[in-house]
């Protein structure tokens, strides 16, 4: 029994690592295509049918590029920083239940690597560690653009983290558990049981904070090329830069899964749609939303982000928590 558990966990880890690395690559393709269509372009077309093999070509390019470390950089931190981003993005997935339970040959598989009772806290905490990657990378690069990027990372980190925690607090109060499986089971039985109807404000706040957490466009201060070249990633090339990239896209999937599990009913069956497909649809909607917002909206200044998070979103989140508490009391 014990060895079966170990083998099962190792297989799950390998599947999550492989699948989400591949999905992160595929998401870059989807992003380039959707952005292109929204701007009346075609996007990548030459490698493979409709440019489908572009992901492979990019991967080969990233792997074979020179791994360059600038002279003035702090070598050790410079080399470790991308690993922090990529690793924390994948570690965060350990506590996320991706799909409903299923059986293979009489053996029940629970598609979650580790069902800890503080799952939500663990995921948010590890995702927050991920921002140490850009922070350390920018400070270790020995480049002024990178340093500005690192400073912006600190600004962003200080701003959104409060909103994330407070916005999730209200659903946690309602469900009474931090385990994401409990969240999922609470919303079983149709669309009307989804938490988004009870907590619409928390849902919007969580989405906004999610955009900030994944450095997506309205809040992509860290690497906005018009202002700070590439921010913290200015000095990075090859696979080290690729690890930042994979981390960002893996974080997008994590936020997509989190938002689906907490607010949109998770992997419960949706009418005639089985639960596994239902959650995939929800996650891909969120991925599309990330890309869609990138095509539509300009990004904001660091001071505007702080203004938004501290003066607007945090009071709303606190009021939301208080009102939820009062309603639950009576």
């Amino acid at each position, binding site marked *: 029994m014990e060895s079966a558990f170990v083998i099962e966990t190792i297989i799950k880890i390998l599947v999550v690592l492989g699948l989400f690395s591949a999905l992160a690559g595929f998401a870059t393709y989807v992003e380039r295509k*959707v952005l292109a*269509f*929204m*701007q*009346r*372009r*075609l996007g990548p*077309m030459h490698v493979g049918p409709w440019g489908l093999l572009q992901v492979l070509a990019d991967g080969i390019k990233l792997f074979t590029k020179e791994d360059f470390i600038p002279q003035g950089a702090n070598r050790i931190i410079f080399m470790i920083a991308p690993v922090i981003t990529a690793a924390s993005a994948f570690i965060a997935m350990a506590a996320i239940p991706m799909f409903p339970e299923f059986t293979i040959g009489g053996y029940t598989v629970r598609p979650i690597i580790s069902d800890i009772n503080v799952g939500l806290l663990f995921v948010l905490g590890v995702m927050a560690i991920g921002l140490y990657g850009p922070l350390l990378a920018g400070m270790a690069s020995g480049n002024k653009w990178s340093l500005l990027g690192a400073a912006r990372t600190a600004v962003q980190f200080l701003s959104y983290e409060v909103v994330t925690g407070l916005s999730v607090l209200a659903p946690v109060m309602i469900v009474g558990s931090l385990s994401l499986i409990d969240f999922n089971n609470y919303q079983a039985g149709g669309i009307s049981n989804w938490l988004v109807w009870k907590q619409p404000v928390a849902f919007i706040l969580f989405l906004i904070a999610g955009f900030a957490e994944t450095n997506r466009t309205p809040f992509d201060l860290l690497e906005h090329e018009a202002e700070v070249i590439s921010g913290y990633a200015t000095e990075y090339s090859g696979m080290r830069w690729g690890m930042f990239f994979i981390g960002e896209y893996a974080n997008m999937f994590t936020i997509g899964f989190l938002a689906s599990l907490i607010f949109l009913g998770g992997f419960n069956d949706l009418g005639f749609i089985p639960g596994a497909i239902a959650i995939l649809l929800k996650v891909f909607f969120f991925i599309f939303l990330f890309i*869609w*917002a990138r*095509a*539509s*909206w300009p990004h904001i200044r660091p001071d505007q982000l702080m203004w938004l998070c501290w003066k*607007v979103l945090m009071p709303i989140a606190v009021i939301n928590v208080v009102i939820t508490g009062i309603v639950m009391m009576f």
Partner: protein
Amino acid sequence: MNGLEQFKDRNVSQNYYRVKIEPYPKTPWERFKRVVRRSLRLELFVGLKITLMEMLRFKIHTIQYPKEKLPISPRYRAVHKLLRLLESGNERCIGCGLCEKICISNCIRIDTRPDENGRKIPTEYTINFGRCIFCGYCAEVCPELAIVHGQDYEHASEQRAQFALKEDMLTPLDKLKEQKEYPGFGAPTPAADKLIKKTPLAY
């Protein structure tokens, strides 16, 4: 007004559109009201709607260049062509040497000899495309419309000085049917009438 009269009318009213700029908020209360107004009017979703509609409409403007090409104007001065007479297939060039003479970058060379009928024909006709500036004087001066500018604008090469020999430019005998008549240097584009616009000057 009809015909050319409408183009002589200089009273062009410029359709300027004045952008409405609301007064900048001065007090914190006004600033707060502006934030609330902008948030509740859901201006962000207008942007989302526009991009989504563009995606669904799917009117792609990309030209995939090596596979697709835009049509170019007949007046475009690309790599030269030597034409033949349409009925007999004889070369049009009479070896007068005007093009060689007028070429301002001195890149055309002709060698001629009289043929059996006593008519002068070119034995060699070369243009050094490393020096040619594609000014079009040769095509303009040619009395027989023999040397013209073609439509082939892709003449990047590995050599700095790329020579075009007579065989490269001359219409092959079996392709005589496909030879397009050059309308003459300075010829208007086919839809020239539609392209005429009023000069937006009022004086």
